[in-house]
């Protein structure tokens, strides 16, 4: 089965750079074919691709006045028949509409191939200007994307980045959004985003399910290691099988817990642990059927460990925020590193870890006050 991934984005957005990164780190082991309908600034170097077992099919109609449908269908059929690749990467013209490309692929009627992700790469520093002046095709690329990857976010003013994200969200509030500078992300992480396996919704659902399972469980196992220190472990079975969910924190150099549940794989890696806490469930137990509310936010805001610590400790104020059962997040720190946190009542766990796709905050609880929580984290 061939999966077709589309990478759209205006000229100079960084499509080729992204594809190169994914080929080097992410798609390895798969047989790839790259179809280009754009003349890239950084020509994809033939040697580099051949070493990686990749074929390039260039299409000549790199001009907005030429229709791509006929050529596209032909190129796709040829490629599938000739190579039976695992994956076809399409880099359409930067000045074309993404919806046209999607339609062209769909109407190519390629038996044996499925559509994968529709990714749009956008230069974060130019979102506002391009949106205003280019209008139609630019908006179309944003609107039809399942994943939007911002480029050139490193060193960008926080407010400007926030404004760019807001503009994009006005036109697409569903797509998985990557705001983190690419050099902080692994190709595999980006591919998870493209495959829609790493969305805020999925994270919230996973956290909610985890919370529900914990709350429903009568007995918890506690491992006491190193004297007074205990870690928050999940030895209980999770039997939700709809969601798959990966947490890869850091370099896995600390102690690592692997749970080999088939569908539900989930790693917690505590490196740089500063304080350990005892996770004793003295607090109210909820029944599994009780409805939790979840609050999720994406943010490009930068935090400090102290600001997260004080926010987490404030969460215990039930009168103000509601009854918080779990909180979890990955946010960027002011120094450019990433803060990971997990919270169960009275037990905040804050550590450094690898970069997320964008900053994400999830809070689960009963009768929670979303506005108050948003204000607490400064993500109104």
């Amino acid at each position: 089965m061939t999966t077709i991934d589309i990478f759209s984005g205006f000229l100079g957005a960084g499509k080729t750079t992204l594809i190169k990164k994914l080929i080097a780190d992410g798609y390895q082991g798969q047989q790839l074919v790259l179809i280009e309908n754009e003349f890239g600034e950084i020509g994809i170097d033939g040697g580099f691709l051949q070493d990686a077992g990749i074929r390039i099919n260039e299409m000549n109609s790199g001009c907005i006045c030429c229709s791509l449908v006929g050529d596209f269908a032909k190129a796709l059929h040829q490629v599938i028949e000739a190579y039976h690749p695992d994956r076809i990467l399409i880099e359409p013209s930067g000045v074309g509409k993404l919806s046209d490309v999607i339609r062209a692929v769909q109407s190519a009627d390629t038996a044996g191939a499925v559509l994968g992700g529709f990714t749009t790469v956008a230069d974060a520093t130019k979102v506002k200007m391009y949106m205003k002046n280019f209008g139609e095709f630019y908006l179309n690329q944003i609107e039809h994307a399942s994943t939007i990857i911002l480029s050139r976010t490193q060193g960008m003013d926080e407010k400007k980045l926030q404004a760019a994200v807001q503009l994009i969200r006005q036109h697409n509030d569903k797509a998985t959004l990557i705001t983190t500078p690419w050099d902080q992300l692994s190709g595999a992480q980006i591919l998870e985003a493209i495959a829609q396996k790493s969305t805020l919704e999925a994270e919230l659902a996973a956290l909610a399910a985890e919370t529900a399972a914990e709350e429903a469980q009568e007995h918890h196992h506690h491992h006491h290691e190193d004297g007074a220190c205990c870690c928050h472990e999940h030895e209980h079975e999770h039997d939700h099988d709809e969601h798959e969910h990966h947490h890869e924190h850091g370099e896995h150099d600390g102690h690592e817990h692997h749970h080999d549940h088939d569908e539900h794989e989930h790693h917690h890696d505590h490196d740089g642990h500063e304080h350990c806490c005892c996770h004793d469930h003295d607090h109210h137990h909820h029944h599994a059927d009780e409805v939790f509310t979840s609050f999720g936010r994406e943010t490009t805001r930068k935090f400090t460990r102290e600001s997260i610590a004080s926010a987490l400790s404030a969460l215990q104020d039930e009168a103000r925020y509601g009854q918080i059962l779990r909180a979890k997040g990955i946010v960027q720190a002011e120094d450019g590193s990433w803060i990971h946190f997990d919270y169960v009542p009275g037990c905040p766990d804050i550590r450094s870890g690898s970069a997320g796709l964008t900053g994400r905050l999830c809070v689960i609880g009963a009768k929670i006050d979303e506005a108050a929580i948003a204000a607490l984290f400064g993500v109104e």
Partner: protein
Amino acid sequence: MPKEIPVYLFTGFLEGGKTKFIQETLEDPRFNEGDRTLLLVCEEGEEEFDPSRFADPQNVFMELLEDISQLNEVYLTSLVKKHKADRVVLEYNGMWMLQQLYNRMPDNWIIYQEFMLCDANTFLSYNQNMRQLVVDKLNSCEIVVFNRAGAGIDKDAFHRVVRGVSRRCDIAYEHPDGSVEYDDIEDPLPFDIDAPVITIEDRDFALWYRDISEEPKKYDGKTVKFKGMAALDKRFPKGMIAVGRFVMTCCEADIQYMSLLCQVPKDNRIKHKDWLTVTARVTVKNHPLYQGVGPVLTALEYAPAAAPEQEVATFY
């Protein structure tokens, strides 16, 4: 007829440096001697105008066209009237074709000067991917300025792109330090225009055709030899055919048959779409089929020929 309104037209893509160039123009006292200027902006980039630095700020009236629908005769006329403008400085949107401006601007607007401003860092990529828009602007501009040109840029590449479209316009490079350098690469035509018989190779047809169309007088009375495809039309007088080739300027969508009228003996057996090698004398004269003055050929010799290897002629 309302009075003529001179238009100073600035074209080029977003971030090409149009705003900066116009700003400098409006700061120059020699250009601003009391004329009321309508500054018409069709694009909003990073750079913004600073009217406080204009040489004659109270005589510059800025209006923004948010959408191409506002580019219409009625609205544009109303803007001139509103500001009692004597002239227009127009910052055109890089994604709009010029034909849209020609079709939509008031009849009394006359383009006096046309400048194209480009960012040297993106121009070659934009040219490859949005060739039609580039060709559109290069066609008619008098000067193209490549801004932010680093020391190591490949001037030959820029030169080739520009000269492939226009032999007339000046090419300037503005370096990051503000210094300006003019392109002085000469491009001799690939055929000898002073030869007793000017011989055009198959690959040079498009270039030659453009040259003879732009400067027919240069060829008046001379003899040329080239290969082309005959076209017959029943409206033509007997013994008159067209000889030319399909020429592609930008991409498949713009392929057009470009030809010259050629007088051949009346008893010829030339059929429509025959390939011919023609040796003919050029006379520049008024001809109804040209609806004006143009180069009319008189065949001295003609013979059937094989089609050229690449049938569609290009500017390579």
